[in-house]
């Protein structure tokens, strides 16, 4: 379990003040015509923190990240990144940040090293210093042997690591990762997150969007977005405490989905949500203890259901939040 209260540590470069937050958003809003993609979003991200931004597709995650990177001007509100205003001084923001998008924007026809040389050059780096930096980063992500491979020939997981170091060549204080693990195999995702945690431990601030709830557990703090609003913001543990009262059970059985509406109406049941082929059932232990729950499930009209106690996940939090609204 990651540290819930991140300790700010100032990276060497371009820190305005050691105590200042890396990212500040104040009532950040973005409209596209009538559609409000992001509405009144406010938060602060401390230095060295891994800040997870969760939400369904279209909830406003990417729009937020694009505003913070200076790619998109906010319609209202303001944001500062590394002490620079994103609307007024996007150039300073660009120098301080690294950005990796879900599309891994690398040139697939170039070799790995050629891609890195290009992006290093785009940040004004060059010569022997850049070559050393590329070597060190390739070494660090265990790709030293793949430097001369055509980027398009790499499997997705490795390509994603190349994209990450392409965003880190200029030693940015803040990394923005927009769905960095979309479509990547689970094992590769774990390796990737180990890297992210190492980076954060070294003082880099990481702002990451994802819709994989399991990944969100790696974050120090999490913001949850639905329909353009930031509806919750806390550490994973606190979010679960706050939004998931009661105890959580995993309910399995052949007709579990059909049984859910009936279960929800039963006194003592706080919530019931499908979870894969099974369901997560949240009950108030004072009104419905384990033995009575087992009886309820065994006697139901939808065949025999089995329940066992489980740890709540962030997905439960997210679903509870969506239900609450």
């Amino acid at each position, binding site marked *: 379990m990651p540290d819930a209260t991140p300790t700010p540590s100032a990276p060497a470069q371009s820190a305005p003040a050691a105590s200042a937050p890396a990212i500040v958003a104040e009532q950040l809003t973005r409209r596209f015509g009538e559609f409000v993609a992001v509405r009144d979003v406010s938060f602060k991200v401390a230095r060295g923190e891994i800040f997870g931004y969760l939400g369904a597709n279209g909830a406003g995650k990417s729009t937020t990240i694009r505003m913070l990177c200076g790619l998109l001007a906010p319609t209202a509100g303001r944001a500062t990144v590394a002490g620079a205003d994103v609307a007024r001084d996007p150039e300073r923001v660009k120098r301080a940040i690294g950005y990796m998008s879900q599309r891994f924007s690398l040139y697939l026809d170039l070799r790995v090293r050629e891609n890195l040389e290009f992006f290093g050059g785009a940040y*004004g780096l060059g010569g022997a210093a850049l070559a050393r930096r590329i070597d060190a980063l390739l070494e660090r992500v265990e790709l030293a042997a793949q430097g001369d491979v055509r980027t398009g020939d790499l499997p997705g997981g490795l390509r994603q690591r190349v994209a990450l170091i392409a965003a880190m060549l200029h030693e940015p204080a803040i990394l923005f990762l927009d769905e960095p693990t979309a479509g990547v195999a689970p094992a590769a995702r774990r390796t990737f997150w180990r890297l992210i945690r190492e980076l954060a431990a070294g003082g880099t601030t990481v702002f990451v969007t994802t819709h994989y709830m399991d990944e969100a557990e790696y974050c120090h703090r999490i913001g949850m977005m639905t329909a353009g609003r930031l509806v919750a913001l806390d550490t994973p543990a606190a979010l679960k405490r706050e939004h998931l009262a009661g105890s959580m059970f995993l309910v399995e059985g052949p007709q579990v989905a059909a049984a859910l509406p009936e279960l929800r109406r039963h006194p003592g049941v706080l919530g019931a949500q499908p979870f894969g082929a099974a369901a997560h059932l949240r009950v108030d232990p004072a009104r419905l203890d384990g033995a009575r729950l087992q009886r309820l499930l065994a006697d139901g009209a939808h065949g025999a259901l089995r329940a066992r106690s489980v740890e709540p996940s962030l997905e439960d939090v997210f679903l509870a939040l969506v239900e609450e609204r």
Partner: protein
Amino acid sequence: MRNELHAVVVKELRQTFRDRRMLMLLIVAPVLQLTLLGYAVNMDVEQVETVVTDEDGSPASRALLRGMLADPTLHLRGASGDPAAALTEGQASVALVVPRGFAARLAHGRPVQVQVLVDGTDPVRAQAAVDATTRFLQRSGQALREAQLRAAAGAPVTEPALTAPPVSVARISAEPRLLYNPRLRSATYMVPGVAATVLLVITSVITAMSIARERELGTIEQLMVTPIRPTTLLLGKILPFAAIGLVVAGVVLAVGVNLFEVPVRGSPLLLLVGTALYLLNTLGTGVFISTMARTQQQAILGSFFFIMPAILLSGFMSPVANMPGWAQLLTAFNPVRHFVEVLRACLLKGAGFVELAQPLTALALLGTAMLTLASLRFRKRVS
């Protein structure tokens, strides 16, 4: 700035030279196009198929037909009872019809007409056939008049008068001497035009595609979060293609000189300056098109919207002077027209900077305007 520009140039060159199809498009295609066009687009009419209908069947009519067919342009396919049908069926493009009573009228010194039917579907060929027949009839008409003059002076009319040698009578004749392209070879005229169009196609399409590709694949977004300036990015994209364009221009010219004996009478420096100014226009067009395209396919289609009218209004195929007034006005804004003019004058006539000041200035002005407009649009699109 230096590292940024270097990075973009190196990246573009790597991408271009790694792509075999792109290399084909860049080097092989222009040479192939030039060779094909140089050989195939031949405006010189060599031979026109001809049928004859001799309704008179006299020695005089036979002599007339022999004389007309002596012209190398007209090639005898045979006699035909129905000349109009021969033309319709495509057996021949010209039919010579000598009417009944030809010899009798001629003997009485009366005017006589020979019918020449010409298939006008191909204007160039038709014109050549008309020229060939009238050439002979003019000469024989003159011989007849001279013979009549002699008869009036008491000398006997010799048979056949048509082929009698002319007597010395006062007359004015033209002695044309063709300069610059004495054999009126089409290739000599065409190669500069082909070179201009090949350069236009290559540089504008490649530039447009290279920028549209970044947009299509999403790499442009990654570039936009880097501090690289749009101007640097644009310059880095244009410079390699400008260099490639100059190399291609050299190759095309070398092929023209070696294969089609196109002379190089003007200064190579003038050619270089003219080409560089022309490239400002074509690269600017490429960038401009790319600002309106989201995909490479759109970029290609968009390029052809520009390229087709630019070629048609360039004087490459048909002279600008033959165009209607409004079209001539349009050609003033067409860089291809000015470049074709510079190339032809410099290569064939040996014209210098002074003689070509006007088209060169036009190229410089148009190129600067195009590139400025394109880069403004590009900067707006990127940021």
